């Protein structure tokens, strides 16, 4: 029950994109097509989970014992960036199909704030290892969900009659705002 609540909270209530406003740049950048949105979503789920696991370890076994928790942000950025690069190199060699599907999105996530944000949240909320894994996975899922829904909307409004000044990113931001309001409706769930 506890884990279910954690998932619902991460996916819907505290959606990383629409409630916490992290990772807005891929949200607007790769949401023009459903296919790319799906690819990006999967890549984020994968990276987010992996990054949280590693940073959790870094925090627990390096920063905490040495009492230099204030280096969290700095060291996490370094670790996440190297990690994503490493994964990309590894995938390219060993898992070609996966690389073809996710490869082009990986560099986009290298310094993604949503990934960093989730890693930091796990530490802030003092999650256990399992809770941390579930939370980061669910956050990634929430990101993918929001992205896919948004891409669906954007595919539609390409063909609708939008006043000139609002065309393009402007209407994208307005739509994101409304989606965010809609997600606020989940607030009462917790």
């Amino acid at each position, binding site marked *: 029950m506890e884990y279910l609540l954690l998932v619902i909270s991460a996916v819907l209530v505290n959606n990383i994109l629409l409630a916490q406003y992290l990772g807005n740049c891929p949200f607007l950048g790769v949401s023009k097509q459903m296919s790319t949105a799906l690819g990006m979503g999967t890549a984020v789920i994968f990276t987010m989970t992996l990054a949280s696991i590693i940073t959790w370890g870094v925090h627990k076994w390096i920063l905490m014992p040495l009492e230099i928790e204030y*280096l969290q942000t700095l*060291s996490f950025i*370094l*670790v996440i960036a*190297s990690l994503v690069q490493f994964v990309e*190199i590894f995938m390219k*060699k060993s898992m070609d199909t996966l690389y073809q599907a996710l490869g082009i999105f990986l560099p986009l996530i290298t310094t993604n704030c949503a990934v960093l944000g989730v890693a930091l949240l796990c530490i802030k909320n003092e999650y256990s290892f399992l809770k941390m894994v579930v939370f980061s996975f669910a956050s990634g899922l929430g990101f993918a969900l929001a992205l896919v829904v948004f891409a669906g909307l954007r595919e539609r409004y390409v*063909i*609708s*009659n939008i006043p000139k000044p609002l065309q393009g990113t402007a209407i994208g931001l307005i739509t994101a705002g409304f989606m965010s309001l809609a997600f606020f409706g989940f607030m009462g769930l917790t």
Partner: protein
Amino acid sequence: MVTALIVMGGLGCVSALLLGIASKVFYVKENPIILEVEEALPGANCGGCGFAGCHAAAVAIATGKAPPNICVGGGPDISENVANIMGMKVVAKEPELASTECCGGARAVEKFNYDGIQDCRAANMLFGGTKLCEHGCLGFGTCVNSCPFGAIEMGPDRLPVFDPNLCRGCGACVRVCPKGIISLISSTTKILHFNQYSECLAPCQQKCPAQIDIPTYIDQIREGKYKEAILTIKERNPLPLTCGRVCPHPCEDVCRRGVEDEPVGINYLKRFVADWEMNQGQHLEVSIAAPSGYKVAVIGGGPAGLSCAYFLRRLGHKVTIYEQMPQLGGMLRYGIPEYRLPKRILDWEIEGIVGLGIEVRTGVKFGEDFDLEFLRAAGFDAVFMGIGAWDSRRMGIDGEDLEGVWDGTDFLSKFHLGETPVIGKKVVIVGGGNTAIDAARSALRIGASHVTLMYRRSREEMPANDMEITAAEEEGIELMFLAAPVRIHPKNGKVAKIEYIKMRLTDPDPSGRRRPEPIPNSETLMDADTIIAAIGQFPKIDFIRENKNIAALKITKWSTIDGAEETLQTDIPYVFTGGDCFTGPALAVDAIGAGRYAARSIHYYMLEGEIPLIEERQTSLIKETLFDHVEGLEHVPRVHPPELKVDTRIRNFDEVEHTLSPSDAQREADRCLRCGLICYNRDIIEAMERELAESTTQ
């Protein structure tokens, strides 16, 4: 502080070490060609090629999934560089440009059913876009927004207008158009296309034997786009200078403006742009498809042969024209007098056609100097036989072989072989066709004091062009109707008198024709020292009857070469025919149309072996397009080109008719009703205007 530095430094070192090892262990050898190709691409990441950015495109090119010319943003030099890297040969590719054949249909009215929607795709999704016309642009201009190169704009009629200089043929507009009316069309496709009943065709375009897109080129003249107008004409007719002068313009007979007003001077306009091109001093460049490797021999350098050779050349084939006379042009040169078609103009026009890379052998006669076997041995894949109709029909009366009796084509061709025929003072022409009129007017110009034209029916039945008959009358040629020669009386072995009999027309027979019949005992004698018989022509085909190896070539009972109506293929599969030798004497523009038709058949015959039939090929006028009245039309007089005064023109062979001034051409082009583009029902137009006004004020 120190700990922090050590930890961060350590983390950095570990990360760097890991990445370093990883890059060594998991090293993937990237194809260096990909990098090179990527360098050569413009790097705009426009996605016009259909790949996600230039890197993806480079990968696709290097792995052979995409051709080197896939980049739509870069142009030919980029493609060339990429092809060089890939070790491929660069051949010029025929450009494919976006275009639409749609000319409106019921679009204008229905546009306003889609209230408030400004995108074609939305309109199509919501309403299905039901159209009366099977094409039917919805007119919201979604294609305009989709074009990455800004090559499309909505024209004044709310139809997309494509700028060929900007269009790169990327196909974005083709993908976005929900009605599927935009296609990438190369010149080849256009040349191979013939009118179909399913198309939206103005009456003039249906009537023109060469199927020139008349409304389009008139529109282009109105907008001052003379170059485009010439190219539009040359997609169908390589001889606009000639046709602009000699064509009897059947198109003008069906012009809908002619129903309420005078028809538009279509041919004047054609001549106007053609003269404009010539006065520029340079032949406009036309596109030629990549070499196909096929060779075609064209026998006969008249309008049919020239047209066939021209279109085959543009389709990428190698063409050689064989001509029996010393110069190309056929009847245009040897049959049409100088005052109607100055030969320096014909020369210039032919020079432009031959300049496309067509080989020419003149002074060689088929059946004597060479035959089909020779052509096959020389490696020709197909042969077009456009030998015209050069034999004159004989009158079949006594005294026909006397000195002073000419046949019409012989007489006319003498002028262009460097000799002036010697004639007497009193000349009688027998016949009522254009050859007869040409002979009469020419005779007048070389010193005949009295020229009579004798025709066995009445003026209404005369096959000659009305304008020519009028001009002949103006020049003082006597027209003698309902009379037929019966005997020629000699004096000292020369023509002295002609005996003729008066005729009358019978009552219409069941087919509605009134035949002439002699009035008994009405023979009359008339003084004449020269008689020119121009009563009809047929192909000179003795060589076929004599020559065994082409005996398979069938001859009809009218002495024309037999061929399939739908393909122009003869009984020898690789021999095609067309023009006068197939149909019997007809117009130059008929021969030009047939030349293109044969070129299409030959093209398919060589490439595919089979010649596909044209579905719903338009051969007669579409009844619905011939509306019998036009509402709300103001009378605007037709322009008349300047012409020489009668007393100055009958003394020489100077060109009689001259070209329009640009302002007159503009005015005449403005008279075009643009059939197919405009609704003639005033109520509908007014309702549309009202709605338009409302929608703009909202």
